[in-house]
């Protein structure tokens, strides 16, 4: 390698090392991400487009899709509000218990979703702590919509906050102080200074939160009770169809979730491409 070209920058490696690293990354991604993704769509379309579309004629599947959209429509706005409030508090004020709050926000990442589902059953189920009281007031949480929403909110609440906290911390409070000194009230400052400065991170957090809310399996599986056409969400419906050996339908429904993931990524890439300047300006001082 005596006559090899000098490295283009002091931090770049030799061509062989570079090639090896890139190969590892590509093979890894290909094996664990692309292959399964392609498999989902090929299996779904194995018997042609007709069979694919027929999978969506099943009323149980339609009600599962409706339920999933409904759950996300409730859980995502809740987490949007929570995420904004929590990251605002953590990034902009000093208070006791701040690090505890930060740790708690990460809890859903570290706890298995099944465990969180079990906790809700323990609290609100028929034999649970509040079960008697709920029954006497004719309220049903477990095996019903409220339970599914609760479990989904729990599992997805870090997404928005986690996107916002580092950005808000980096931006500090000086622009807000400037706005206050110019006469802006608290809400106006939030609306025209804080929020625009984090809008892309917020949008991305919401997209991630939504994808996860629609795709959550473990926690929802525990609290839903798998009542066909009533409390089955899309991921649960996929499992049921698969267990019924209805592979084409299972993969067809699964392809909707996979498509959702791809759309999320596409929107993110599109945003970065379209607003790249502004996004990097949000990080610059």
């Amino acid at each position, binding site marked *: 390698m005596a006559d090899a070209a000098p490295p283009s920058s002091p931090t770049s490696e030799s061509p062989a090392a570079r090639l090896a690293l890139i190969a590892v990354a590509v093979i890894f991604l290909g094996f664990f991400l692309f292959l399964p993704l392609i498999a989902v769509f090929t299996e779904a379309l194995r018997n042609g487009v007709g069979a694919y579309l027929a999978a969506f004629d099943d009323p149980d599947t339609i009600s599962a899709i409706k339920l999933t959209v409904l759950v996300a429509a409730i859980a995502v706005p809740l987490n949007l509000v929570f995420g904004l409030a929590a990251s605002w508090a953590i990034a902009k004020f000093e208070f006791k218990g701040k690090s505890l709050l930060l740790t708690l926000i990460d809890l859903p990442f570290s706890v298995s979703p099944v465990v969180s589902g079990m906790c809700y059953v323990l609290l609100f189920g028929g034999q649970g702590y509040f079960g008697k009281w709920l029954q006497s007031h004719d309220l049903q949480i477990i095996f019903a919509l409220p339970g599914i929403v609760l479990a989904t909110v729990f599992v997805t609440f870090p997404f928005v906050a986690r996107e916002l906290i580092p950005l808000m911390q980096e931006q500090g409070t*000086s*622009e807000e*102080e*400037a*706005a*206050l*000194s*110019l*006469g*802006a*009230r608290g809400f*106006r400052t939030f609306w*025209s*200074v804080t929020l*625009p*400065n984090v809008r892309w991170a917020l949008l991305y957090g919401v997209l991630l939160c939504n994808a996860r809310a629609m795709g959550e399996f473990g926690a929802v599986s525990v609290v839903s009770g798998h009542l066909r056409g009533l409390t089955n969400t899309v991921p649960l419906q996929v499992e049921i169809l698969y267990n019924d050996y209805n592979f084409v339908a299972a993969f067809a429904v699964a392809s909707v979730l996979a498509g959702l993931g791809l759309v999320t990524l596409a929107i993110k890439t599109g945003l970065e491409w379209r607003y790249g*300047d*502004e996004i990097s*300006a*949000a990080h*610059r*001082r």
Partner: protein
Amino acid sequence: MDLKIRDLHKDYGQFPALNGVSLDIRSGELIALLGPSGSGKTTLLRAIAGLEIPERGQILFGDEDALSKSVQERNVGFVFQHYALFRHMKVFDNIAFGLRVRGRARRPAEAEIAKKVRELLDLVQLSGLEARYPAQLSGGQRQRVALARALAIEPQVLLLDEPFGALDAQVRKELRRWLRAIHDETGHTTVFVTHDQDEALELADRVAVLNKGNIEQVGTPDDVYDRPETPFVYAFIGDSTSLPVTIEQGRALFEGSPLPIGAVDSPDGPSRIHIRPQDVTLANPDDAAVHGEIIGLRRSGAHRRADVCVGKARSRIEALLSPETDVSVGERVGLAFKGFAAYPQDPTPPKLGLARAA
């Protein structure tokens, strides 16, 4: 509008950032807060603006108690050290912000706002850049946008925190003159923070020197330079070195021998005399009361600076010599002093903090 600050205290926990600061600022004057890093300059400025709540003391805007008012009600223009421009707004919208957030009754029509912004852009010499984002401006341009934004609300007081701190020397000098011109044109009562003594002396009507949360002296640039009231001010403003002496009946003794510098107005006991480099002259080492060895020679502008180690304690005295003076490192020289300063009860050299190095 006059500004009165009375016995202001602010504590962040370990030690006071403001320790009983009192200061009268006259209507229309340009006053500099000068002091080393950590002396409380920013804290004082933020307290005036209402961004920091002092534990004790009084701030009066004219006759009105400012502490009972919120930041928004105080109507101060604050220019932050790092500008704090709204990064997602164009220059125009940055400057218009303060007018647009006013309550309906006091908000000018959009056409009037546009007119006002144009005038301000003109004033700060940025016409033509109104459609840029802050990230697309140079440091000096951002600084001027920040100033225009603060001026837009027609503030009762204009507060500037190290307005030129992040700029290079050339731009600083230019903006300094320009700020003075704007001040003379608009006539706002202006307080600005700096740790650069040249900036303070050149720009301000009066200078307040801060040290460890206390005001050491307030006066015109001539006052603080020529008649410093405390050893700290003497040492902080302009160059100086000092010599440990013993005072006996109005005479200064250096290691037992009297210094030929005339009467010293200090009580008997250990003390220090402070000498500016330009007041040190070389003399014959055998006749002089103070003599020592040259340990360093440096060229500085039109002059030559010599470091001389004197006495048993090897105190360092700095002398400003003409470049023709024929001396070399290691040579023994005597020192004579054309002027000096002595302060009662001043046995230890003042700690100047970090800002001296700048």
